[in-house]
């Protein structure tokens, strides 16, 4: 088993140039934007003299390459630098926001699975039947409704009218967080599940018609046992990659959701940093998101390998 996972170190090594590339692209892009932290901080009451003094103080007058290499140098020492806006270590806010977003994504993923697996199963057992039609309408609606709109509608219905869940926020006590994240996670799950349902439905239909299911049936298998062990396990494989790719998109989607639900995660942090031109914070968040996408990619392959003994990335990489 373990030898099939030996592709991981190579994959991690190949991630290094990707991450480096991301830092360069993000660094150049944020510096291409007009305006800098000194302008953003001083606002309309700034004068050219005050801006120049603040730029000097923030080290923004150094050549761009020097700024980049000092960022990279610090990074290699595990130091993300200080926020240009409040002069506090970026790691402080980053490590505060990171678990919030990760919890949101994980919660959304679990909910998306809870919605998708039964619905895909229901749809696939009687293709083109009434239940299948119902599920397909749901997927169409789910894909068609913008996330922020779904979010606001859920708030109006569930929070303001029924008062079952809070209107945004993350809760002050640790025990509150899951309760506060329920609606935003559900919003993300609603937008994520149509893609999963479609993929899972198609592969389940294919799986149900396959020889090995017929064989299992002839040997007396049936019901949920057949569905979970034979159908779902095989049907899930293409869906795993769909989820992997979607998780990357979901990080982007969480920016909107975090704003609508006032969640202090990476999306909110990124947005605030961009408006304030807080270069060091933008770079660190972008770097973390890049790492996250890479890790999700590797994890997808790991799950793939574990689910399907025929898949062997290690041998492919050696070839």
């Amino acid at each position, binding site marked *: 088993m373990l030898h099939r996972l030996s592709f991981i170190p190579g994959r991690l090594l190949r991630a290094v140039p990707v991450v480096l590339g991301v830092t360069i692209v993000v660094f150049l892009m944020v510096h291409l934007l007009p305006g800098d932290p000194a302008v953003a901080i001083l606002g*309309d*009451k700034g*004068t050219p003299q005050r801006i120049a003094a603040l730029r000097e103080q923030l080290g923004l007058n150094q050549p761009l390459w020097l700024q980049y290499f000092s960022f990279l140098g610090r990074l290699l020492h595990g130091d993300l630098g200080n926020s240009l806006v409040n002069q506090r270590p970026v790691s402080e806010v980053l490590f505060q926001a990171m678990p919030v977003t990760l919890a949101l994504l994980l919660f959304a993923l679990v909910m998306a699975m809870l919605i998708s697996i039964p619905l895909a199963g229901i749809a696939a057992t009687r293709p083109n039947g009434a239940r299948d039609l119902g599920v397909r309408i749901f997927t169409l609606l789910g894909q068609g409704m913008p996330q922020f709109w779904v979010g606001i509608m859920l708030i109006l219905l569930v929070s303001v009218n029924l008062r079952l869940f809070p209107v945004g926020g993350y809760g002050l006590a640790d025990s509150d967080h899951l309760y506060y994240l329920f609606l935003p996670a559900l919003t993300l799950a609603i937008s994520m599940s149509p893609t999963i349902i479609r993929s899972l439905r198609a592969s389940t239909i294919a799986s149900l018609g396959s020889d090995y299911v017929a064989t299992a049936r002839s040997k007396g298998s049936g019901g949920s046992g057949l569905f979970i062990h034979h159908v779902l396990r095989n049907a899930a494989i293409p869906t795993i990659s769909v989820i992997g790719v979607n998780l990357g998109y979901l990080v982007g989607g969480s920016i909107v959701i975090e704003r609508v639900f006032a969640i202090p995660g990476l999306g909110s942090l990124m947005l605030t940093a961009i408006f304030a031109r807080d270069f060091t914070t933008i770079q660190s968040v972008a770097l973390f998101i890049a790492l996250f996408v890479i890790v999700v990619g590797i994890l997808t392959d790991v799950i793939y390998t574990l689910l399907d003994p025929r898949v062997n990335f290690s041998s492919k990489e050696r070839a």
Partner: protein
Amino acid sequence: MNKNNPTIFLGLVAITGMLLTGCSTGPGSSAASVGTPVAGGDLKIARSSDAISMDSTSASFENYSIEVYQNIGESLFTVTDDGKSVKPWLASGYTESSDHLTYTIPLRKGVKFSNGQLVTAKDVKFSIDQDTKTADTGWGFINAAIDKVTVVDDATVAVSLKYPWAPILADLSLFSNAIIPDNYGGKTPAQFFDAPVGTGPFIWGEWKKGQYLKLVKNPDYWQKGKPLLNSVTYTVVPDSNTRKLQLQGGQTDIDNTPDWASFASLKSSPGVKVFAFPSTQIDYVAINQHRAPFSDIHIRRAIAYAIDRKALVKAVLFGNGSPANSLIPPGTPFYDKNAPGPTYDVAKAKAELAMSSRPNGFSTSILIRAGDANQGSVAQIMQAELKAIGITMEIKQLDPTAAKKASLTSEFDMNLSAWTMDIPDPDEWTTFATDPTSGNNSAFTFYNNPAVNALNKKAQQETDPAKREVIYKELQKTTGDDAFFTYLYYSPYAFATSDKVGGYHVSPLLTFHLENVYKTK
């Protein structure tokens, strides 16, 4: 001249003008009272952004940070509720020398910092000196007229000026001149501002950046029996819809920036009260005189006459505001409600254009902030109105920071801008807007009228309020005639609170005095 009065009136201007602004909307512009004050409770305030830094000497000390800090740090003087004058706060009065160059200020007796230390003259000198040092990167520019602060005795300081300077008490009331312990109470500045210590009604609690900032009651506050609340929690809720829903859902007590579009629906929501407090905000179009053809006064006047300000107030502020007639906004001392600023008159606009260097019209552009719905509406209305007199105006949208950069470097033909005051004296604004030597080329417009410059200088050094009023009246008239800005409208500050919140009042200078606020069950 002894002026040991509890209230020092810096101006004799009638407040009627101010009351015209905004009071007609919302149930009240005075402190909201709900039943009997009840002690205790946590006041939750939902804001669109988090504070950045409590470091009152840094440039990052912006509005969201100041709003929090003013509950911790207090100054020698404070702004009165109407925003028109200051009154002694940590000072017990003041004496002005006959040459107007020295102000001797006795301190209020028995005031302690929240760390238990008694406030002394040494603390006052340290606090003001630290602020003055930050002229280039912080708020210290406000102390430009101060020569030195001297400790007279333990309970008295003397502030000496470089030249007679009428706004000095207003300057001393600024948040950056809040009194903190001498030498940061033995801490480094960074350590101190991590958990600042002052004399205010609340003390530093906890800050989870991007989530919430909590202040707790100062049990030894010098105003006996206050504050009434146990704590204040500022939460970050960027989306205005979510803030509104949180207020309606009872999850927050105050939405501190409801948008005008939802103001009316909030007003009719059960359990919610809305306020339109008079402000010092003026929205205007800055016109760059280094770009053709704006050095021509007739062109500028043509634009000023072409704008229907009442229509803007209706469309953008949903009726909550008033057309602007003067450079000085109504919440500021010496505002002249009769200032003859240009008003909507298409015939006059066409006549001015006919007299100008471009009688057949011209093409120009206006800079606005992308994503700002109000600015978008104003620009579109202006576009149509200018088209009617033969001026083609393109709308250029930039993201807020890029727009600030373009604004600061005068890279615009016209620029949709706004201003709010920090001190209860018009000088901060008149100097910024009209003085070409103040470092920003007259609010980046390159406006330079020697007559206005002379009036502005004269007003700075004249300490008699009655005489200052005459000078500022003249200044308002001349700047209006010059049409160097196109004044648009004055908008009040919108706030919405739960109906269980009492004693809530916001001054035109955005001072809050949360020690007076209470909640009912």
